């Protein structure tokens, strides 16, 4: 039987096993929305702004490992989605974003709500497709999911002109597709794995530096086994938190600009660096000239272009990190060489000495609410088992430092692009995927206002997200830099005329709380968790000029930290 393009679209999503589509209707996608209306397998979630649709799909993808799906209309619908697409691209998150397009005969005509979606999204997608023939629609959708989820994952845009959704053809959804120009490497080179293991076994001051690739590649188990078999310290990037249990003794904390003293010092002094699914980002390396001056570097990554991009490495291994780490475990079992126990003992002694600096300490006797204390308390009352999303800024760094993630896919934040406004919509996607879990969005009064309209979506779908607003009345990270590097000239970092967040939350039908005293923090968080079915917006008025420490200033090496 012949189906319309719109029905083919919906059938393809069903056959792909899509549970949720996050979207917003408009003229160019009306046929599709009608087809969605006539079925009940694929759930459509109506957001309040297309940026939030992409972030919600992104949160869904990060917390499940499944691709997030977005549907928006042409023109402004698509351009609004771009920030979310770029966010997913920078963090290698699998999304399939369907954008409406004006009818094929009007393309290029400056038609109403026309934008060149393919051109606009090209630099921030893994790939994109314009569907010009309805007979190609089903296969293109299959290809989009295949490209988005394999290799180094990423967002794929499929631009569908309106007339295509009305034309009819026979529906057939391929079981699999092959693309002759796209064959991601799976297994690491055996010889390289062997060389790497030999180098690791000879190491005197080794460290694992692991990133988002461990999370995306479902390799946390293999990493943990390997690191524990070797008794090597492990540091995680911002994107890699949860890839190794944070409460384990071998974990030395996050590294980089706001990483721990022990992690950065261990990086600086290591002799063998094992980088796994991490990309030597400038926020990690600090001054590249001063980066790991004594180290031989092993780099495991699925993307060859990530290897030797910023830092020249000695043993590159291209492959799926989980496969490579398991191959290393197997090689370790058969290798006759033993780790240098005495050298490792000395190394751990040195690391523990750095650790004893207690670089994350803060004034816990303050009569003002310390943001760090809020996160520590949240960690305690959720037993470390919540899904935590965050926005971008100081609160993000404190969340990364003080919430100890023992499991992967629990820490959901925009690391690469640093997108303010990400937290709340991402939390929606996480909550849809895990309806019974505690999902908390750690945010600030600056970030939350960038997608605050989603409180309405949360009401519509009764999403019981716990919003932890660390409100210092400043764009805190900007203010911190201005304090350090611009002689406290606080240009535009002060937020005047903030809303009454309690009333605002209540006006959307949620529970609002304002917390002003440290002694009320724990009670508020416990109460919020107890209100299982309600979104609770907790507005914590925190110490206004608290800074994030430690900090590597721009141009500094990893051993040149500003400590409290």
């Amino acid at each position, binding site marked *: 039987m012949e189906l319309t393009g719109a029905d083919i679209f919906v059938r393809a999503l069903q056959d792909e096993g899509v549970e949720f589509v996050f979207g917003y209707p408009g003229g160019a996608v009306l046929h599709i929305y009608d087809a969605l209306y006539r079925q009940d397998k694929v759930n459509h979630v109506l957001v309040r702004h297309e940026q939030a649709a992409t972030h919600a799909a992104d949160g869904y993808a990060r917390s499940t490992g499944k691709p997030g799906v977005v549907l928006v209309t042409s023109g402004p619908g698509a351009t609004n989605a771009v920030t979310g697409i770029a966010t997913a691209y920078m963090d290698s998150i699998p999304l399939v974003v369907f954008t409406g397009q004006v009818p094929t005969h009007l393309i290029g005509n400056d038609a109403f709500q026309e934008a060149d979606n393919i051109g606009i999204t090209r630099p921030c997608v893994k790939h994109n497709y314009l569907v010009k023939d309805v007979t190609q629609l089903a296969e293109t959708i299959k290809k989009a999911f295949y490209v988005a989820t394999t290799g180094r994952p990423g967002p794929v845009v499929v631009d569908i002109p309106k007339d295509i959704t009305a034309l009819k053809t026979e529906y057939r959804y391929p079981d699999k597709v092959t693309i*002759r120009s796209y064959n991601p490497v799976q297994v690491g080179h055996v010889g390289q794995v062997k060389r790497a293991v030999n180098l690791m076994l000879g190491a005197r001051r080794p460290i694992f530096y692991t990133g988002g690739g461990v999370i995306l590649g479902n390799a946390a188990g293999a990493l943990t086994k390997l690191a524990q078999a070797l008794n090597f310290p492990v540091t995680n990037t911002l994107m890699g938190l949860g890839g190794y249990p944070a409460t384990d003794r071998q974990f030395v904390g996050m590294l980089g600009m706001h990483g721990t003293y022990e992690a950065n010092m261990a990086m600086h002094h290591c002799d063998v660096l094992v980088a796994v699914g991490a990309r030597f980002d400038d926020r990690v390396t600090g001054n590249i000239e001063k980066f790991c001056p004594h180290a031989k570097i092993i780099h495991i990554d699925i993307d060859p272009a990530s290897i030797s991009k910023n830092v020249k490495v000695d043993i590159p291994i291209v492959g799926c990190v989980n496969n490579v780490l398991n191959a290393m475990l197997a090689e370790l079992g058969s290798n006759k060489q033993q780790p240098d126990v005495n050298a490792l003992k000395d190394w751990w002694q040195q690391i523990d000495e750095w650790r004893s600096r207690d670089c994350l300490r803060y004034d816990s006797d303050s009569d003002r609410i310390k943001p760090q204390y809020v996160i520590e308390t949240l960690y305690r009352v959720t037993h470390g088992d919540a899904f935590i999303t965050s926005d971008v800024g100081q609160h993000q760094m404190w969340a990364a430092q003080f919430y100890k993630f023992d499991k992967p896919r629990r820490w959901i934040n925009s690391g690469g692009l640093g997108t303010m406004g990400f937290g709340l919509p991402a939390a929606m996607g996480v909550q849809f995927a895990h309806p019974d879990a505690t999902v908390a969005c750690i945010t600030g009064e600056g970030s939350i206002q960038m997608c605050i309209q989603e409180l309405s979506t949360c009401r519509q779908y009764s999403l019981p997200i716990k919003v932890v607003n660390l409100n210092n009345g400043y764009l805190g990270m900007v203010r911190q830099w201005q304090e350090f590097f611009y002689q406290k000239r606080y240009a535009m970092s002060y937020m005047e005329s903030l809303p009454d967040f309690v009333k605002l939350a209540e006006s959307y039908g949620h529970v609002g709380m304002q917390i002003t005293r440290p002694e009320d923090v724990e009670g508020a968080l416990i109460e919020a968790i107890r209100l299982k079915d309600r979104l609770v917006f907790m507005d914590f008025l925190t110490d206004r000029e608290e800074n994030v420490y430690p900090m590597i200033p721009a141009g500094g090496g990893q051993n040149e930290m500003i400590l409290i």
Partner: protein
Amino acid sequence: MRHIISILIENEAGALSRVAGLFSARGYNIESLTVAPTEDPSLSRMTLVTRGTDEIIEQITKQLHKLIDVVKLMDMTEGPHIEREMMLIKVRAQGENRNELKRVSDIFRGRIIDVTDQTYTIEMTGAGDKLDAFVQTLEPGLIIEVVRSGVSGIGRGDRSLKL
């Protein structure tokens, strides 16, 4: 170092813009770029001349590989290869200059393909530096128009870029 990179790419709308966009987004320079379909109409072949350190060229080839539409590529300059470029050049050819221009063009194995009482149009093929040399031989005042095709390259002997 100057590199000639040959690329087999899906012959689809937008494929060229993906390559050009990659170069501008990552700040690589393109000295010349030519593209046309091959004997297999589903494939285009692109020849791209760029400059950079070994590290930059390595990144360029990796990033090109990463584009989904790129099927295969080869850095021609890594091995024996032949490079050719075609130039059409229109020069002022009056009075005693006419003979001299014809003579120089012959030396460079150029062909005069259009003649008026005021001008010659010369077609010339060769490696880029030969064309440069010819242009430099001419008095700048004589040149009316220069059109260059950009470089095409092919491997010598058994060295070839195909599926």
